[in-house]
């Protein structure tokens, strides 16, 4: 079995990209910025030998949006790359050229939270139905369904 990564190894690989801390023996977090996130992912794939993307988590913490890219590899340590996005302009470069499964994950996040992944080849609707109105992002903390909006389903005219 491979050894777990050590905080020092990760800090050396992520030199200049942000702060590194160990959340658990097998989970190390790197806090970086939207401008540097692709570089961080690139270094995780190359220098830290990560080869599997576990999840791209997206959180609305009330004040801003956070994206957490979780990667792992033969060392069985999860490298979590965290970044924060401003609420009024949540844009971040896409990771789908480095991580092909991110193509689907980013579309889902865009549908539910409205984060824009710049450079994504196909940022279309994927998880909400086709009648769902634009610019309504249900997973945002301040979203509430509007009683006068039609969100999809059956109209009365169709139902008898």
């Amino acid at each position, binding site marked *: 079995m491979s050894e777990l990564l050590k905080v020092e190894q990760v800090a050396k690989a992520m030199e200049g990209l942000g702060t590194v801390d160990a959340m658990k023996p097998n989970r190390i977090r790197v806090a970086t910025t939207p401008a540097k996130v692709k570089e961080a992912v690139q270094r995780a794939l190359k220098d830290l030998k990560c080869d599997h993307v576990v999840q791209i988590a997206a959180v609305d913490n009330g004040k801003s949006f956070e994206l957490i890219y979780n990667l792992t590899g033969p060392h069985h340590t999860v490298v979590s790359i965290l970044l924060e996005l401003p609420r009024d302009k949540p844009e971040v470069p896409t990771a789908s050229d480095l991580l092909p499964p991110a193509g689907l994950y980013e579309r889902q996040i865009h549908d539910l939270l409205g984060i824009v992944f710049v450079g994504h080849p196909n940022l279309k609707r994927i998880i909400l*139905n086709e009648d769902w109105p634009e610019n309504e992002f249900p997973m945002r903390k301040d979203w509430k369904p509007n009683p006068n909006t039609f*969100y999809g389903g059956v109209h009365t005219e169709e139902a008898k």
Partner: protein
Amino acid sequence: MTLSQRLANWARMKSPWITLFNSGACNACDIEVIAALTPRFDVERFGILAKGSPRHADILIVTGPVTRKQAPRLRRIWEQMPEPKYVIAMGACGAFGGVFRGLYHVVDGVENVIPVDVFVAGCPPRPDEVINAVVACLGLLKEDLARGGKEWRAKKTKVIERVEAKEGAQPAPAKPSEAST
């Protein structure tokens, strides 16, 4: 009734064909319906066949709380079925949305989209209960055939107003429904 009508009625009673529609369910109900086709419960010995196309089916079994995406499609599938047709709404989800009641992408319950004849309780209902529901439908079918159709049922369930948002929406008027299993 003419001889050919009596023959057709006998064939309908002896061999009801079902079709299954998953309107966004967790699949537990679907698995239990398909388990009813397998050797332990074996509904085929009753003449019940699962057909793919709604145009060939007598009974539509709907699982799931009906997501917003599936609601128009469920309506279309139901309209494609020829009379006499019956609808069985499976489980807690089919009755009122189940655990998913009130979620933003769900139209709570099958009754908001198409009229339902039989509700089956459970989460999920056992295959035995599914067979029981199909037999209940056959009972309804027998009565309707004797009276020349479904119109005599004064207490037929009506489809209610569209449900789009949970806040501000009027609650559905309570309506009597047919045999609940």
